[in-house]
């Protein structure tokens, strides 16, 4: 790309001069993918997330082969051990192996993040598409519902929902998603409203395509870029939200480790062992940083509004 003015000129349709066929345009997806691949740092960040996810999935293997400890096994004779050979990253106030807990904590923290994204996107997309597509009173009812959900102070929802459903990875994801789906719905609805007006939708409609088919086959692909961007930016944010909820005592409850509750837990022992604060803090930082970088890369590559 060589700058806006240049592009404008090159792309200009020639009214009086037949320019012949333009160079074949790459499809939007190929182009986006190419742009993403060109972003080395973004790809590296993405791979790091994948790596962490793999570690999380294989956590039992790691505690069997690498650390030789279980995440919840306590040993009150070996509390606050500094990092060393026996415990690579040391132990916490109950003598549990920090590395093992970090690995198992990845299951929870990343699991919650991915699950939350999946849930809020699927619910939000469905609601947003239905509202945007049908319009009228369906739209009104659904959007007032969205307004309502978005207007309840999130903290009340978090507190009360966490009491209603004891937080484990699944319910916590559901709790966070119960706040998150609303904005997705708004986003998707907006996108659908603009796509709906385009000729091809009207054409498809006129040949009598069923609504469901139309939404899935024609609207969804158009909304997809927005969703991809939202998803990749969402993961990091949800890890932070999860950590904040742990800090407020509304997240994953001990003894199940999550990065957030490990970090929260360690705060009171900061004076005893800085490592306890450092390792989970660093893990969260690196993960969120990576997913934000990846998310930004994805946005730069996929966001149709940033094209050109």
């Amino acid at each position: 790309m060589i700058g806006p003015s240049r592009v404008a000129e090159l792309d200009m349709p020639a009214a009086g001069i037949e320019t012949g066929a333009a160079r074949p345009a790459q499809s939007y997806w190929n182009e986006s993918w190419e742009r993403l691949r060109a972003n080395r740092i973004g790809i590296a960040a993405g791979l790091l997330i994948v790596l962490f996810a793999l570690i999380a999935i294989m956590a039992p293997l790691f505690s069997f082969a690498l650390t030789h400890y279980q995440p919840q096994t306590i040993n009150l004779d070996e509390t606050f051990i500094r990092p060393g050979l026996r415990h690579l990253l040391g132990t916490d106030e109950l003598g549990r192996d920090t590395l093992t807990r970090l690995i198992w904590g990845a299951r929870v923290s990343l699991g919650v993040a991915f699950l939350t994204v999946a849930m809020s996107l699927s619910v939000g997309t469905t609601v947003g598409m239905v509202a945007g597509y049908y319009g009228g009173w369906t739209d009104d009812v659904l959007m007032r519902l969205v307004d309502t959900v978005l207007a309840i102070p999130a903290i009340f929802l978090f507190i009360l929902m966490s009491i209603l459903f004891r937080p484990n990875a699944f319910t916590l994801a559901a709790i966070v998603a119960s706040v998150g789906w609303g904005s997705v719905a708004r986003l998707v609805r907006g996108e659908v409203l603009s796509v709906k007006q385009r000729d091809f939708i009207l054409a498809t409609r006129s040949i009598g395509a069923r609504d469901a088919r139309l939404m899935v086959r024609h609207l969804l692909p158009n909304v997809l870029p927005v969703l991809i961007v939202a998803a990749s930016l969402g993961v990091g944010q949800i890890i932070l939200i999860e950590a904040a909820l742990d800090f407020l005592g509304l997240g994953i409850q001990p003894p199940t480790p999550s990065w957030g509750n490990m970090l929260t837990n360690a705060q009171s022992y900061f004076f005893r062992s800085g490592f306890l604060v450092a390792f989970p803090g660093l893990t969260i930082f690196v993960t969120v940083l990576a997913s934000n970088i990846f998310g930004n890369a994805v946005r730069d590559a996929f966001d149709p509004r940033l094209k050109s």
Partner: protein
Amino acid sequence: MSRDEDADSGFQRFERFLDEWSRRDFLKRTGGAAAYLTFIAGGAEFLEACAGGGGTQSATPKKGGHVVEGNFTDIRTLNSMLSSDTASNQVIGLMFDGLLNYKKNGDLVPALAQDLPKASSDGLTYTFKLRNGLKWSDGRALTSDDVKFTYQLAYDPKYADVSSPRRGDLSKYIKSIDTPDPQTVVITTTQVYAPFLASHGLYGILPKHVLGSLDSKAINSADFNTAPSVTNGAFKFVKWDKGQQVTMERNPNYWAGASYLDQWIYKVLPDSVAVTNQLKTGEIDIGPVDPGQFDALKTVDSVAMSEFPVPTFTFYAYNLNPATAAGKIFQDKAVRQALLFALNRQQIVTAIFFGHGSVANSVEPPTSWAYKDKPKVLYSFDKAKAESLLDGAGWVKGSDGIRAKGGVKLKFTMITNAGNKQRESMLQVMQQSWHDIGVEATPSLIQFPQLVSQIVSIRTFDMFLVGFNWSADPDEAPLYHSRNAVPGGFNGADFKSDQVDQILDQALSTLDKNKRKDLYSQFQDLMSDEVPSPVILFNNGIYGVGKRVQGTDFGPFNQFGQRPWNHATWVTDGK
């Protein structure tokens, strides 16, 4: 870091009052001394108790300056008859004196009263004589009418709409209050009730000339509750910045002499880490210290640490209601005893409370004069004994390693409140310790309100873990008497023993302290055998006090509301 301190207010502090304090002899001395002291203390003793303070200083007190006391619990009300939480009581105690007060070992001393009251021979009537020349901070005389009015709020049917948490007891026990003259108060009780003075003699006295004209409902919402215009304690109210601090200043009319300090400020902090940090920076002068933070402060030159046992214990309770699944398991005494034998409680005290607390042998705290050091059954850590008890009772290990009897597996869930680190840790230690003897116990953390609901009414739990904070009287009926197993009572474990009921009732209606001591001794023996809700440890209280502050004297019964030395506190730099 605990996040629900506000929800948990009174409770939460236990965990901080940790212990270890391997000075077992100190505990004994306190307990023993308390036991042998006579019930009646003289004025001379009172002076000794309140004038000097902790003995850390020898210099002459200076007038002027201020103290900032930090705590991580917000207060709710400044009306002594509406308050039910320790934080509020603590601030109320700075501004309002009651008829009586505690010495730090829990002995009663006179405050607004001249002497401890004389009880009538039938034990039903207490006659208080007020000190001469008592004045409110506005200069009006404080009379027996004020005292009567204060108690009326909680017992007189005329004030039935006042939302006082004291009404249950007071309306039951007070028959009438007479004021034959402005300095005399005669309280007649409906029945002999031994803890009456220790439990109900300390409420801050309220000014009738301010509140007397209001009806019940208006008292609930009076401005006085948030901004008391008139006080009778060491300090006067200045302002309350909600969520932040309460500022108080010297009350020149205080009966024990005007405070050295110009101001006392109660500041609300986010959590125990903040208390530690701000003790270090000097943003606060006084604050309760978490056992986990003790070492961080011990090395700080500018802060002196004060540690002492408190009438608080942390215990777990079995659900004994035979109608529940858990009740069927825990009805078996062998199970209850075996589980306790399987816990290495010394290790819990050492590792989780960093030694700031002591393993409990009895259900009475060692701060009590009724404390029995060695009740009938002692439970030292003995895994083999635990296993043989279970084997003997017919609980045998299945193929999955979990014991079962008659098809019922020895598995249950343990609940406590989320956000309380020490309790969370204890559940995990219990889970692992019991797993080692073939018992599957699953920890589950719930919010404090839900825990309270479980304990006082819903009662679908298998086992809960909490702390309890006692007054100076050894009565423990709220937890162990069957009449408190009704909804709303704290005997959520549904412990029902006719023998225990009888002993507790008898002890309540006995005024003779030695007789009571015998009864409570029997009670402790019985409980050590039954172990319906074993006490894991007795907590310690730790206060960090900036060295510029002199004249404080924290002790088991002088931490929150009761501090006879408030007015005698001073600061070396006069700032």
